[in-house]
């Protein structure tokens, strides 16, 4: 909406100037805030990278061997959550968009959205207090019968508060996020293409495979990435469910579990002082970098989608 080169100079109205100025200021403020976040995180992190490792909690060999297990735990828990959540989320989205009776579909959508409205601390409470004890017998059974499988190496956790429980809770939390996006994408599938597939004699599933999924693929990818970003950054559910250890282990059902960066910060922050705070902030910076990378991939996927829909 740029003004055409006007011969008569437009009168500058005070209201216009103030209003556009305020809008511009608000936009700029966001840039400033983000810059501040980045600068202060980096500034407060620098001491942690330089510190004598002996001063870090647990006296690791170096800062990186302190962060290593945490990064592993963060990525591992989030990946497990994704593996659980993505197929279910796709199923729910398809159910709402293409299977459920249309009258019900919107209501069902709201129901799933309710899951997103539950605060994460409540999920933590539920995961630690209800889900973990309830699922422990199942873990015990798994370890007894499938202990040979590396993921279920004995001994089993006696409380059920394992990385797998965390992954389940995280999966429930990111489910509505992935579902909401995928549902929108699936609902936007052009009717033309759906009808084309049906008119060729496709069954409902074949129609979905021919028309809905190819159309929605970029949207699905970005939805999954958003869910991943959320799972990586989730703090309370992990902090409350897990009994952490400094360990890199793929075992899902043991009492020795790697913890995640955010949970580690939440658990240690209240007692941290001096250089300990800097170390925790540094781990936060690393988390920020990881989630930033994930979100960049998501944005890239979305931009693919833009080109794609432009073709129509």
């Amino acid at each position, binding site marked *: 909406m740029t003004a055409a080169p006007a011969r008569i100079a437009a009168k500058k109205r005070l209201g216009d100037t103030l209003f556009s100025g305020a809008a511009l200021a608000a936009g700029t403020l966001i840039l400033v805030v983000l810059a501040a976040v980045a600068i202060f995180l980096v500034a407060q992190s620098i001491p942690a990278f330089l510190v004598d490792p002996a001063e870090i909690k647990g006296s690791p060999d170096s800062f990186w061997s302190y962060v290593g297990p945490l990064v592993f735990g963060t990525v591992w828990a989030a990946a497990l959550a994704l593996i659980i959540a993505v197929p279910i989320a796709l199923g729910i989205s398809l159910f709402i968009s293409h299977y459920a009776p249309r009258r019900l579909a919107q209501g069902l959508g709201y129901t799933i959205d309710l899951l997103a409205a539950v605060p994460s601390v409540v999920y933590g409470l539920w995961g630690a207090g209800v889900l973990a004890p309830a699922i422990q017998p199942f873990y015990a059974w798994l370890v007894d019968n499938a202990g040979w499988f590396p993921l279920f190496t004995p001994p089993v956790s006696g409380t059920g508060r394992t990385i797998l429980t965390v992954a389940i809770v995280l999966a429930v939390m990111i489910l509505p996020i992935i579902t909401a996006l995928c549902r929108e994408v699936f609902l936007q599938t052009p009717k033309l*293409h759906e009808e084309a597939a049906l008119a*060729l004699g*496709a069954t409902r599933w074949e129609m979905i495979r021919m028309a809905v999924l190819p159309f929605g693929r970029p949207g699905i990818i970005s939805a999954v990435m958003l869910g991943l970003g959320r799972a990586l950054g989730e703090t309370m559910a992990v902090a409350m469910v897990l009994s952490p250890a400094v360990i890199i282990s793929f075992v899902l059902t043991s009492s020795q579990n790697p913890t995640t960066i955010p949970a580690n910060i939440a658990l240690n922050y209240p007692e941290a002082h001096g250089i300990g705070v800097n170390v925790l902030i540094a781990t936060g910076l690393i988390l920020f970098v990881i989630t930033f990378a994930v979100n960049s991939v998501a944005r890239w996927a979305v931009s693919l989608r833009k080109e794609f829909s432009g073709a129509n």
Partner: protein
Amino acid sequence: MSKRIEVRDLDVYYGTFRAVEGVTLTIEPRTVTAFIGPSGCGKSTFIRTLNRMHEVIPGARVDGEVLIDGNNLYGPGVDPVLVRRQVGMVFQRPNPFPTMSIRENVLAGVRLNNTRMPKQEADELVEKSLMGANLWNEVKDRLDKPGSGLSGGQQQRLCIARTIAVSPEVILMDEPCSALDPISTLAIEDLIEELKTEYTIVIVTHNMQQASRVSDKTAFFNIEGTGKPGKLIEYDDTTTIFSNPSVKATEDYVSGKFG
């Protein structure tokens, strides 16, 4: 490879609203039948009931019978998937699958039933179908390019090729030329003329010249007013409808007094 369609006392409803009322007509094999009438008279709704595509529209349902060579499409336990394999459809706007190449588009329907078709056989089918749709010469060098890269008229012929690749008995066309320019329209009309030798064709059109050019028989649909159901007013040979219709409304419509 073509079949007689008999429609008996068919009503179509959207929810509680009756959109089309009491249609009875017989469409002979290997003919082109055109449905004409003003907007909103239910001709597009009606053509969709001939292969149960109306079920895609929420709340749409049908009372009555459609018999294709004696088999009732609305009998108990009828599988719409089987129906649509035999009664293909071409839509108003060309709709090739954007993520598929031209070749894949043609094969899309066939692949459903025959996933491991030998490459040579598939190539032959692609060529035959595209030939049948008068598109082969234009696209034979770029079969692996996306179908959405073609012009509108080419896309529509690609859709026709895709439809005839599954060798249906009947082809329904819902205003196939309304989104196309005159040259492409002419190409499609020529194609319809050729397809008639093998298929039973039903075409909905807004364009009366088109109906008189391509069709053997014409059905005129009309509504009395908004909120009223559409009805089949007159069904006869195209020449009769356009030169000597028996109903006043038909004459008014074909002579351009309304619609």
